[in-house]
């Protein structure tokens, strides 16, 4: 047993008072969870603390909070480890971010999450009538592939941590987009292209993700929502060639082409290539992209001003010395009939061996 200090963010909507911190002491073995700590406070001292919780085993997805500022499930965060990361020795527990707070640690997930889940048409739209007295015959790998997205428990922890959501509250968000992949990647679904077009063309859709990995890092179920978003992009761009008004298609293509050519990102070329198929110098910009290009000029100028981009670097981007190897990776991948996507249920050969050692 050990003593831990909890600082719990309290908010009573009926009091008319702003939120405040409540300080509590708990006595638990360090391997027990932060949720166990909160429940001990509720049991012994103050049962008015509001927190949704049920299974205590990271299955029901109720107890998403921020612990020492980091979004997590309270039930699968060990209290001893949380204490080690705590500033001033007190573990801070706050409601999830990017969501309105209803009371104490209880947030309004309907407003910022479930509404968006419904936005992605979250049910199977079968390609054909189901076979009679039989299942759909589909590849085992395809089922395992979408099962990673199916593993999502909709706890909202990724939504809480999402940086894009902070800037654009209308962003569909990591969990709802992972849900979308669950249908797009499902061979039984017949609306792959419509779904992808819809999510690519929505300015708050798949290209609103900034690829920051925050959702991957915090997800308690290894759903890796960002990876699912990237899969949606690969399918939208690579498989369906969906050209969207957000220039997501062009940006994705430009990225891949530049890496194939230089091995590293040629940032000065990225912008013009994203907005046109060729370089800015050659004047192959797509007319529809002019407005966005102009809007991005201040960013480019700031880069020049801060020295991040220099005219020399911008014009003469060196290739990697072993650029041929990069090309070989490209041709190896492109020569395959099927795209191999690893996930938490399909572990790569090398991954297995590493873990073995």
């Amino acid at each position, binding site marked *: 047993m050990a003593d831990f200090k909890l600082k719990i963010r309290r908010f*009573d909507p009926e009091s008319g008072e702003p939120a405040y911190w409540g300080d509590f002491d708990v006595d638990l073995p360090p391997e027990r969870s932060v949720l166990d700590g909160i429940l001990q406070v509720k049991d012994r001292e103050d049962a008015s603390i509001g927190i949704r919780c*049920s299974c205590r085993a990271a299955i029901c997805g109720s107890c998403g909070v921020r612990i020492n500022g980091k979004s997590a499930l309270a039930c*699968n965060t060990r209290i001893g480890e949380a204490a080690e990361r705590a500033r001033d020795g007190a573990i801070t527990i706050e409601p999830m971010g990017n969501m309105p707070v209803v009371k104490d640690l209880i947030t309004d997930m309907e407003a910022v999450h479930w509404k968006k889940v419904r936005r992605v048409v*979250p049910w199977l739209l079968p390609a054909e009538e189901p076979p009679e007295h039989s299942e759909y015959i589909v590849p085992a790998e395809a089922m395992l592939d979408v099962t990673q997205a199916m593993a999502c*428990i909709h706890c909202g922890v990724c939504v809480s941590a999402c940086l894009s959501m902070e800037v654009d509250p209308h962003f569909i968000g990591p969990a709802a987009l992972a849900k979308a992949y669950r249908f797009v990647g499902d061979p039984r679904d017949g609306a792959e292209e419509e779904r992808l077009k819809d999510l690519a063309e929505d300015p708050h859709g798949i290209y609103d993700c900034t690829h920051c990995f925050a959702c991957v890092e915090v997800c308690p179920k290894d759903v890796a929502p960002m990876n699912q978003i990237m899969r949606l992009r690969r399918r939208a761009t690579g498989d369906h060639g969906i050209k969207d008004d957000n220039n997501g298609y062009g940006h994705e293509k430009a990225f891949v082409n530049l890496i194939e050519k230089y091995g590293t990102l040629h940032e000065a070329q990225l912008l013009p290539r994203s907005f046109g198929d060729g370089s800015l110098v050659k004047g192959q910009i797509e007319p529809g992209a002019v407005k966005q290009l102009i809007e991005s000029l201040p960013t480019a100028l700031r880069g020049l001003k801060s020295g991040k981009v220099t005219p020399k670097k911008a014009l003469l981007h060196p290739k990697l010395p072993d650029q041929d190897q990069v090309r070989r990776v490209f041709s190896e991948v492109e020569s395959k009939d099927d795209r191999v996507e690893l996930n938490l249920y399909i572990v790569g050969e090398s991954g297995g061996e590493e873990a073995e050692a």
Partner: protein
Amino acid sequence: MPQHDVLVIGAGLAGQRAALAAAEGGASVGIISKVHPVRSHSNAAQGGINAALNPEDTWESHAFDTIKGSDYLGDQDAIEIMCREAPEELLELEHWGVTFHRNEEGRLGTRAFGGASAARTYYVADITGQAILHVLYEQLMRHEEVYRYEEWFTTALVQDEEGRIAGAVTRNMRDGSMELFSARAVILATGGNGQIYDPTTNALICTGDGIAMAYRIGAPLMDMEMIQYHPTTLAGLGLLITEGARGEGAHLYNAQGERFMEKYAPNKMELASRDVVSRAEQTEINEGRGFPDGTVALDITVVPRKRIHEALREIVNVGRDFAGVDITQEPIHIKPGNHYTMGGVRTDVNGQTPIPGLYAAGECACVSVHGGNRLGANSLLDTLVFGRRSGAHAAQAIKGLPVPEPARASVGAEQEVIDAIVSRDRTGRRVSEIKAELGQVMDRYVAVFRDEQGLNTALETVRRLQEEAQTVAVDDKGSVFNQDVLGALELQFMLDNAEAIVIGAIERKESRGAQYRTDFPDRNDDEWLKHINISANGEGPEVSYSEVTLTQWEPEERKY
């Protein structure tokens, strides 16, 4: 006053399946749940769902396994229906989009499970319940005409003057307002009561609400003494390690390194039925061959690594996060722990209780398909088959019935109960103290091994706690998400459940299924091949009996 043809209370698998079936039957449907539907405890069903779908398998084989598993207490007509309808139910789920495991030909693949004579358990890794629950919720979102009342807490069922069900009283947790729902039919799908035990694999929400509410308006409870202890739960926390682990080949060892199931079930070994394995483990532990922490070891390392990642992923996480054990590298310590309520509100094969218009489905119901002991992967099947049958039946049965007008006074009465708790000053014990004592007493005396003396102690304790519960006070005086006052109501529900369980266990003077009486160690078909029913008659619980329905399987000795 919200009005629906069919009101479903509880939104786990049974509730959602009932709501979908009732909607397809043309009824206007409301579904109420004290948690968001995807938080329901059906999530925790890891291993899979049974169905005799393979051409080599037969429903009769599935039915026989279930009947033998039930220790012949299951009603064979109901079991026949469940096993016959299992394949189509499974295929419907597949057509709705459940990502069931496939074999190399792309067809549905199976795993082995306890007490089964064929590998007939269909699964999604080890998140089967979660996957089905989320897919049903997808379908629920698609059906815009089904009204969802998420985070509404039902406090009481309401009848009309003739005793027919007329609706329910609920509290909107978001703002604390009380609402009277009018309904031509009410389907209870509120789950089990594991929280009356400590530890338990059950979630904090599993407080037997529906069982208690039905009991309070006179519905008989059946087989309540049959409480399943799951053989593989983590010591202390009670978290579940799926039977799928043993289905995939994991072994059980005592502290002396003996694979002890050889002694108890030489044919089925670790895959004997749950009551048998739990008793074997508890015997090893009681006789000093367990580990010092009161456990035995489950060795999953014999399962190939790739297979563990593909099929037992959640168990890797549970081991790592909650026990600090890498199950791919070392055995994990486990013990029997409270898991499942075989008994519940007595229903017929269409989910109808003896109260007109009141249905029950899933763990809160007792059809009875599980009898004395439920087989692994039959619970999901039970929720779905009888959830669907309840919803479909209710949608037809209400046709032509007038819109009931439940008495407004019922809301006032419920409001008074809540007001009394909220306004009370603390003089007695806390809700948490009473709950903790209840959990300890039940786990000590009403567990794997029972005897009359212990059961009497348990009954005395439960009755004392019932009195103490009358004086609990709460810290939260507010209206918005006052979980504290709901906890006080849940405590009363739990105590009603506990009382019925103990009375049933005292009454049944034999050993059958999950009920093992050390003072009556044998099964006694002559006297006890019957269901125990417990009803509230105003003055207290009343015991009566009902026949076990036998069709083509005569009771015989049970060996694994």
